[in-house]
């Protein structure tokens, strides 16, 4: 998935000399190939994210296509006001790239973990929010972010979970859900994003559930969410992000207005990580491991069956 990211960026930079990569002193090995093949289009802006985002806006003003890279814990959070004023307000084609979203940096603690980045970007007008699940979605999201010609935040989470699609997606349709598994319509349907799509597939395998991937969190197709609602007995959302203002919130905003439905939001329950440990360990701490999720989906389904 990271190779897909690097390759997509190199292809875009080779085909358009106006593409610039700005990094806040991050991406040590990730950009080796980019630096080798597009050295003139690589700018290390220093450990100064606020200035870097403002500078990207200035570069976009005179015709460049900046891709601004850093950790998901930094790029959408620390310069949130620059993202709003310098980029989104003026609808400039700047792509913000947030790497290591969720609990990727599990051993490093709260400063490097990001479970509020979707919330901090989703409410900013003009700014689209993408969250690819595998290498195919990554390539499609990168190409979409370039051709959309508008402000985009692209969230990159745990990247070694394996594929969820079987072939390339070309092109990504704005805001659409992608169905990745057909399951029983009398059971809850799963809508997941990023690294949790893989988890959703594993859970769905156990209970024969339908799964949709949401590579675009904003916009999010109201029609697709409505269709998922109609094709399932309740919905479950899964994200390596807070349940506040993330995917779960986006889905319930649609269902509550259009097709009131019970929705179980699985994600981080408005809390920071308490311990140091592996990514797997932190998922367990937050109840995002497969067994915890299956137990919650079962309880949700049984409750739905009793009350329906």
């Amino acid at each position, binding site marked *: 998935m990271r190779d897909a990211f690097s390759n997509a960026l190199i292809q875009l930079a080779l085909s358009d000399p106006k593409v610039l990569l700005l990094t806040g002193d991050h991406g040590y090995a990730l950009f080796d190939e980019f630096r080798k093949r597009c050295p003139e289009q690589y*700018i290390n*802006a*220093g450990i*100064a994210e*606020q*200035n*870097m*985002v*403002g*500078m*990207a*806006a*200035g*570069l*976009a*003003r*005179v*015709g*460049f296509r900046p891709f601004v890279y850093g950790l998901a814990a930094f790029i959408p959070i620390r310069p949130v*006001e*620059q993202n709003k*004023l*310098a980029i989104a*307000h*003026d609808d400039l084609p700047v792509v913000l790239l947030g790497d290591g979203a969720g609990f990727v940096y599990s051993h490093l603690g709260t400063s490097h973990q990001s479970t509020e980045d979707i919330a901090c970007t989703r409410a900013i007008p003009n700014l689209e929010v993408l969250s690819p699940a595998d290498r195919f979605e990554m390539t499609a999201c990168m190409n979409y972010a370039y051709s959309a010609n508008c402000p985009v935040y692209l969230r990159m989470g745990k990247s070694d979970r394996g594929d969820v699609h079987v072939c390339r997606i070309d092109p990504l349709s704005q805001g659409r859900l992608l169905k990745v598994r057909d399951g029983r319509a009398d059971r809850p349907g799963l809508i997941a994003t990023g690294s949790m799509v893989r988890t959703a597939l594993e859970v769905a395998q156990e209970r024969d559930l339908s799964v949709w991937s949401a590579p675009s969190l904003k916009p999010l197709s109201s029609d697709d969410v409505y269709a998922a609602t109609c094709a399932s007995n309740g919905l479950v959302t899964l994200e390596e992000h807070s349940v506040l203002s993330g995917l779960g919130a986006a889905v319930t905003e649609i269902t509550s207005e259009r097709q009131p439905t019970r929705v179980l939001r699985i994600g981080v329950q408005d809390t920071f990580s308490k311990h140091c440990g592996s990514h797997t360990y932190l998922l367990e701490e937050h109840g995002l491991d497969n067994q915890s999720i299956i137990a919650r989906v079962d309880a949700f389904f049984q409750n739905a069956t009793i009350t329906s």
Partner: protein
Amino acid sequence: MISLATPTASAKTDTRFAPARLRRTVLEMAYAGSTVHIACAFSIIELVSVLYRNHLRYPNNDPRAEGRDYLVLSKGHGVMAQYACMHELGWLNDSHIKNYFADGSKLKGLSDSRVVGLEVTSGSLGHGFSVGVGVAMGLKRKGTDQKVYAIVGDGELNEGPIWEGALVAAHHKMDNLMLIVDKNGFQAMGATDDVLALGDLSAKFESFGFETLEVDGHDEATVDAAIRQLWAIGAGKPKALIALTVKGKGVPFMESDNRWHYTRLNAQTYAEAIDALGLPGDSK
């Protein structure tokens, strides 16, 4: 710090940007819209007057011309001074001035880049300069001779991104970028020395790698000469012009009285302020 060469006479023949005319426009807007920030605009009047009259290049008088120079008003609170210049250029008409702050109007109380002629959305401080740094970097990459001027307030220098941008500007040898500090000695709640002392600004910017001059920001000929001198020297270095100014300059009862950061005009203070400008035809 380098010393200033003898000022050359500026192009006084162009009276469009005469400071008293610009201040009158600011007062007309502020009175029409019952707005604040009059003193913030008055301290930069001579700076914008000299820039628009003698330095900023707009091919075909087009504020959107691709080959234009960029004036980034990072201290968005002074935007009425820029509106006054845009009015002189015909980019704004009398109706814009008379209907300032009317419901549904387009000119806001702080710089908004969606207004043609304004380059950045600012007012939340410490934002515009970084955008100016990015524009300067982009123009250098394109190999043009276009210039970028960024006006920041001295209070605005409290903001961290200004110093991030200063490091980047020097590191990338942005000799097409001029930072102009409106050093009026005040910020919203008091004197800069009392709120957060800035120390020796010239020494600070020199140590960051800027070619620096400190001048009387209300003496047009001196400001003009300083800008020319800064562009002429220090190849590979960004420029910093520290303009010593007076908040509320031009109307004696507003000068260095920080209440005019927030105070609105009434019929009497408006008439007195217009009178103080001493423009022919305006006296009672």
